[in-house]
């Protein structure tokens, strides 16, 4: 049995951590805001803080991004070069008639064009909405339609596979800018060549005077029911990105930083694009998919000093075995953090054994826009805990009461819902066009996260589970309704119920239960047909990994499928209160 705490001593800290007791005491959001440049007239713009602040200063020639392509070839962009490229793209958007507040969607592999497009669009005041490249056509269509996409930036390969089949239904989409295929250099018909648009733009750009309250980013997330929700984030969120880059990730000048999250999700945006640039460090961007040996090689050869990754990736590295890891060494690595779902204690310890450093779990979600609760460098780690609230973050464990009120739970180690006091700069400002759903997330001053947790006597928070049926797989939230809807489109399916089944590597995998219409027989060939059907529409990241047939699904008397009961039965757990179950 391992110890339940990993203490830290001065010997564990190669550089002095930003977050100590005095930094915690003196912290104010206004103080952090004052360190940023802002715009003349009092506004603020994420891209100006991330790029121009450095490009026009002594760090102009530092490497901002180091892109590694699939063959291992590197391409570096200095802060000055990235700023110029983003200006070119900003000019291109203006010349296409894109105005402040209009939506620019990004669907790309991890390539430099993605970063150029995101930052350039932010400079114009357009709203950036990242899409995950492992989504299938249906989730892409839903999000672009809900988000009113005007421009899409994508690659030739992704366009052919995912956009061409749905293009006719995207009536509001005016421009599709396509990064040509590396091999052929060609782009599909009726699209615009991204590289030509970029080359035509000037390197000078007058940044749109965005305000702190102006919408900057639109991140789609999933709920239990209904369509995905577009969480609105504003330019003022940059204050949180900056503060958390400093206090949760401990970024220091000269760091080589690698965030492995895909920029199609909120982590890959807040901490893959924005936070490292705010701190003037060098970001590694690896285009290739996960590969254990490649990842160790990158950590070693790029001298990565701060690494932000995810539990699923860590567990895949664990599966690859310690022998592989021992062929590499990581003398420059000094801080490793993880987010996505709770990091199991074995994985925290694995970091200490194999990388020489324990892994620091932290917690946040799409709606919070930035890290809220974290294990930080100077703190002792309690493996399995998400850590303690960062400065400026007021967290609580609450119980929802009747009439929309909440009751605070002060007793240690007692389960309740994790809540945050509203007011941190990167708090979401709405779900696009869904005010009612937004209001339901708050009780008075408190944002209710939907995550169940406990706080121990030392103030560490421990994740318990979700209060709803949303599935967390490989760090991504998946809404069961979206999966059920796709399955219901198949002629054989009468009912579908979708749950997250615990999985040792990805946290949860999507498992679907279906009952069939009369005339269809439950057999292996139909099971594979349904799997293929779901994958074609939803993509690998959202489609079920398992499908099981049931004669009928348990429903409440009001007709709702009882996912919880499906889950309890799958896990062999007590079925709980089934008084609502239909006879």
């Amino acid at each position, binding site marked *: 049995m391992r110890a339940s705490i990993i203490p830290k001593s001065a010997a564990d800290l190669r550089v002095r951590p930003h977050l100590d007791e005095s930094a915690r005491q003196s912290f104010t959001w206004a103080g952090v805001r004052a360190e940023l440049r802002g715009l003349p007239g009092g506004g603020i713009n994420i891209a100006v803080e991330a790029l121009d602040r450095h490009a026009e200063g002594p760090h102009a020639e530092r490497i901002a991004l180091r892109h590694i392509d*699939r063959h291992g070839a590197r391409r570096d962009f200095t802060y000055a070069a990235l700023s110029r490229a983003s200006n070119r793209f900003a000019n291109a958007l203006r010349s296409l008639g894109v105005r402040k507040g209009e939506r620019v969607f990004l669907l790309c592999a991890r390539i430099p064009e993605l970063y150029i497009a995101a930052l350039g669009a932010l400079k114009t005041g357009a709203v950036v909405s990242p899409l995950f490249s*492992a989504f*299938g056509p249906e989730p892409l269509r839903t999000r672009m339609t809900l988000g009113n996409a005007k421009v899409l930036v994508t690659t030739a*390969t992704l366009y052919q*596979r995912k956009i061409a089949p749905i293009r006719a239904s995207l009536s509001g989409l005016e421009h599709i800018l396509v990064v040509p295929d590396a091999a052929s250099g060609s782009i599909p018909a009726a699209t615009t060549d991204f590289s030509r648009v970029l080359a035509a733009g000037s390197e000078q750009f007058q940044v749109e005077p965005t305000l702190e309250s102006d919408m900057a980013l639109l991140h789609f997330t999933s709920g239990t029911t209904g369509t995905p929700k577009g969480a609105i984030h504003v330019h003022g969120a940059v204050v949180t990105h900056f503060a958390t880059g400093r206090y949760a990730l401990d970024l220091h000048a000269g760091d080589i930083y690698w965030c492995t999250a895909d920029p199609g999700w909120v982590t890959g945006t807040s901490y893959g694009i924005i936070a490292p640039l705010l701190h003037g460090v060098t970001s590694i961007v690896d285009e290739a*998919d*996960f*590969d*254990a*040996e*490649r990842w160790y090689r990158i950590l070693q050869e790029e001298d990565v000093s701060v690494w932000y990754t995810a539990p*699923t*990736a860590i567990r*895949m590295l664990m*599966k*690859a*075995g310690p022998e*592989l890891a021992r062929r590499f060494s990581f003398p420059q690595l000094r801080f490793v953090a993880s987010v996505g779902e709770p990091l199991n204690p074995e994985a925290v310890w694995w970091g200490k054994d194999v990388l020489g450093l324990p892994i620091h779990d932290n917690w946040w979600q799409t709606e919070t826009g930035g890290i809220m609760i974290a294990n930080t460098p100077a703190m002792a780690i309690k493996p399995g805990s998400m850590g303690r609230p960062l400065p400026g973050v007021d967290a609580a464990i609450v119980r929802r009461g009747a009439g929309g009120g909440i009751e605070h739970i002060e007793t240690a180690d007692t389960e309740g819902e994790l809540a945050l006091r509203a007011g941190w700069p990167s708090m979401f400002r709405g779900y696009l066009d869904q005010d009612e759903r937004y209001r339901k997330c708050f009780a008075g001053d408190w944002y209710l996260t939907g995550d169940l947790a406990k706080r121990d006597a030392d103030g560490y928070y421990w994740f318990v589970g979700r209060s709803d049926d949303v599935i967390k797989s*490989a760090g991504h939230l998946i809404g069961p309704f979206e999966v059920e809807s796709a399955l219901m489109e198949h002629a054989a399916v009468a009912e579908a119920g979708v749950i997250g089944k615990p999985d040792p*590597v*990805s946290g949860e*995998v999507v498992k679907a239960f279906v009952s069939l219409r009369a005339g269809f027989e439950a057999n292996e060939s139909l099971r*594979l*047909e349904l*799997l*293929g*059907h779901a*994958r*074609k529409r939803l*993509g*690998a*990241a959202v489609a079920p*990994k398992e499908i099981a047939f049931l004669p009928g699904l348990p429903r409440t008397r009001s007709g709702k499928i009882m996912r919880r009961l499906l889950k309890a039965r799958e896990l062999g757990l007590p079925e709980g209160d089934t008084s609502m179950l239909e006879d």
Partner: protein
Amino acid sequence: MEANAVRAAIGQVLATIAPEVALDALDPAAPLRDQVDLDSMDFLNFIVGLHERLQVDIPEADYARLVSLGDLVDYLVAKRPG
């Protein structure tokens, strides 16, 4: 003959993970994951399935070489006993 048998085995394993894909429609020289939607879990399951069906050990360190269908066939033919 051997290459054909290996190709057929790849098709059978792939059909359990990504049944929407027709093996014949894939370009054997292009990266498999550009043509088939496989997340990291799918890819691992695919490799495990190949190992089980063909009784070939595929060490983690070799994954990076297995990019296209052609790479996979060549690799598995070379490693297969007999």
